[in-house]
C-alpha cells in the first residue's frame, strides 16, 4: 500500500517534470541561441555547451530596433492606462446602475471580445487612413484600447460586484459626488482587479503583431512586427533574431514570475465560480 502510494507520487513528479521540460526547453533554446555568434550557430548543430557572448544583442540594439522597443513601451503603457480607466468606469456603470441599454452593452461587450484580429486589421487600415490617424502611435493606441476594453470590463465587473455598496452609500452621506466616489472609494478597492487587467492588457498591446503591421510605418513600428521583418530579410540571422525575440519576450516573462497568481486568476475568471 505504502509502496503504491509512493509510486503514485513519483509518477506525478515524472509527469509534471516532463511537462515543465517540454515547456522550458524551447525557451532555453531561444535564450541560448541569442547568446551565440553566427558561427557557433551554423558550425556544429545545436548545443547548450558554448561560450556565451552578447554580440547579437549589441548588433540588434545598434539599429532601429531600440526605437521600435521604445514605441512598444509607449503603446503598451499608454493603452494599458487608458484601458484601465475607461474599462473600470464602464464596469462601474454596469455593476452599480440600471440604465437604458445596459443589457445590450453587456452582451455587445462580451461578443466583441472574440473578434479575430485578422478581421479587424483590414477595415482598421482603411478607416484609420481615411480619418488621418494611420501610421501614428495614437492610432495604434486607440485600436488597442478598443481591443482590450471588453476583457477589462468583464474582469473588473467581477471585482466590483465583490465591493460592498455600503461604502459608497456612506460616501454619499458624506456629500461626495460620483467622480469622487469612483476615484477615492472604488478604485483603491479594486486594485487586485486593476493589477490583473493591467497585465493582460499590457501583454496584448506589447505582443500584438497583425494590427500593428497595418497601422504603423518605418518610424512608428512596434517591436513584434520589427522582429517579423527580420525573418523575411534575406538570409536568416538566428543570433540577432533570437536576441530581438528575447527582448520582446522579456517583459511578459518578468510579469509572469512576479504575478503568476493574478494571471492564473484572470485566465480562469468567469469560468470558475468563487
Amino acid at each position, binding site marked *: 500500500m505504502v509502496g503504491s502510494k509512493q509510486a503514485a507520487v513519483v509518477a506525478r513528479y515524472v509527469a509534471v517534470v516532463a511537462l515543465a521540460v517540454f515547456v522550458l526547453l524551447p525557451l532555453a533554446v531561444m535564450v541560448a541561441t541569442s547568446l551565440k555568434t553566427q558561427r557557433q550557430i551554423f558550425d556544429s548543430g545545436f548545443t547548450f555547451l558554448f561560450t556565451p557572448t552578447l554580440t547579437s544583442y549589441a548588433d540588434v540594439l545598434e539599429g532601429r530596433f531600440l526605437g521600435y522597443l521604445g514605441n512598444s513601451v509607449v503603446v503598451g503603457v499608454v493603452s494599458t492606462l487608458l484601458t484601465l480607466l475607461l474599462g473600470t468606469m464602464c464596469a462601474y456603470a454596469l455593476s452599480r446602475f440600471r440604465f437604458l441599454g445596459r443589457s445590450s452593452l453587456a452582451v455587445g461587450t462580451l461578443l466583441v471580445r472574440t473578434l479575430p484580429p485578422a478581421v479587424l486589421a483590414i477595415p482598421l487600415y482603411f478607416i484609420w487612413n481615411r480619418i488621418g490617424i494611420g501610421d501614428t502611435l495614437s492610432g495604434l493606441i486607440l485600436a488597442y484600447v478598443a481591443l482590450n476594453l471588453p476583457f477589462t470590463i468583464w474582469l473588473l465587473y467581477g471585482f466590483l460586484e465583490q465591493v460592498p455598496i455600503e461604502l459608497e452609500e456612506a460616501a454619499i452621506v458624506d456629500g461626495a459626488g460620483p467622480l469622487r466616489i469612483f476615484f477615492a472609494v472604488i478604485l483603491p478597492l479594486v486594485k487586485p482587479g486593476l493589477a490583473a487587467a493591467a497585465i493582460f492588457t499590457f501583454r496584448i498591446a506589447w505582443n500584438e503583431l*497583425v494590427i500593428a503591421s497595418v497601422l504603423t510605418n518605418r518610424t512608428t513600428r512596434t517591436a513584434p512586427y520589427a522582429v517579423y521583418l527580420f525573418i523575411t530579410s534575406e538570409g536568416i540571422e538566428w543570433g540577432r533574431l533570437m536576441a530581438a525575440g528575447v527582448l520582446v519576450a522579456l517583459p511578459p516573462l518578468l510579469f509572469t514570475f512576479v504575478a503568476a497568481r493574478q494571471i492564473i486568476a484572470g485566465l480562469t475568471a468567469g469560468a470558475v465560480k468563487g
Partner: protein
Amino acid sequence: MTRNTSIIPVMFAAPAVLVMAIGLGWPVLESLRLSFYELRLGETVTPSAFRGLAIFWEALSDPSVHTSMLVTLKFAFVVVALEMLIGVGLALLLEAPIRGMSAFRTIFVLPMMIAPICVGLIWRYMFDTNAGPLNTWLAHIGLKPEWLADPGLAFFAICIADIWQFTPFVFIMALAGLQGVDHSAIEAARIDGATPWQIITYIKLPLLAPILMITLLMRLIDALRGLEVVYALTNGGPGLSTELFPLHIYKSAFVTQRMGHSAALSICLLFVTTLLSVALLTRANPLRRQGE
C-alpha cells in the same frame, strides 16, 4: 443595490462605449461594406467597383479558400483534441497537491504569455533543417527531415507549436475546476469501493463537464482566429498546407490585395466565431447579475 440616476451611468460608460464603437463596431461595418466592392490596397470605394454579393460567391467557390478552410478545421480539431486530452489527463493525475506545484504552474503559463511572434520564431528555429536543435538530435539516428519544406511535416510543426502554447491553459482550467469539485461524492464512491478509474469517469469528469465545455469553446475560438504564430513559422507554406483561414484573409488583403475577397471571408469567419462566442456566453456569462 442599484441606483436610478440616469445621467451618471451614461457618463461613466460613454467613453468606453465610444472607443469600442470606433475601434470595433465601425471596422466590422466597414468590413461588411468592403465585401461588396472589388478594391486594391489604397483605392477608395467607388460605385464602379461595386459587385454586390458576387464577391461572396466567388470567394466561397475559390478552391484555395476551400483548402484553407479544410486546413483550419483539421488544425483546430487536432490541436484542441490533443490539448484537451493531455491537459485534462495531467490535471487528473496532478490533482493531489504536490510540493512545488505553484512554481510549476508559473512555468506552465510562460508559453501563453510571450508574444506569438516569439513562439513562431522559436519553433521555426527548433524545426530548422540545418541549424535546428531537433535535427541536431535526430542526426544521431541518421535522420534529417526537412520539417518546414514538407506539407505534412509543416502541418505537424504548426500543431506542435500550438500544443506547446496552449496545453498548459487547458491544464490550468481543468485543475481550477477540480479544486472546485465537491469532495463528498468522491469520498462516498471511494468508501463504496469504486476504483480510481470509475471515480474519474463517473464522478470527476461529469462534474468537470461545464468548465471543460467552456475551455473547449475558448480554445476552439482561438484556434480558428489566430494567425500570428503560423505567419512567423511557415507563412502558410509549403503551398497552402498550413494556410490557416485568418492568415488567408490577412494575405489576400495585404499581399494579393483583393480587399473584397478578404472582407467577404472576414464576414464568414466573424459569423463562425460569433456563433461559438454566443455558445460560450450561454455557459459562462461574466456580466450576468447575481440571481438573474
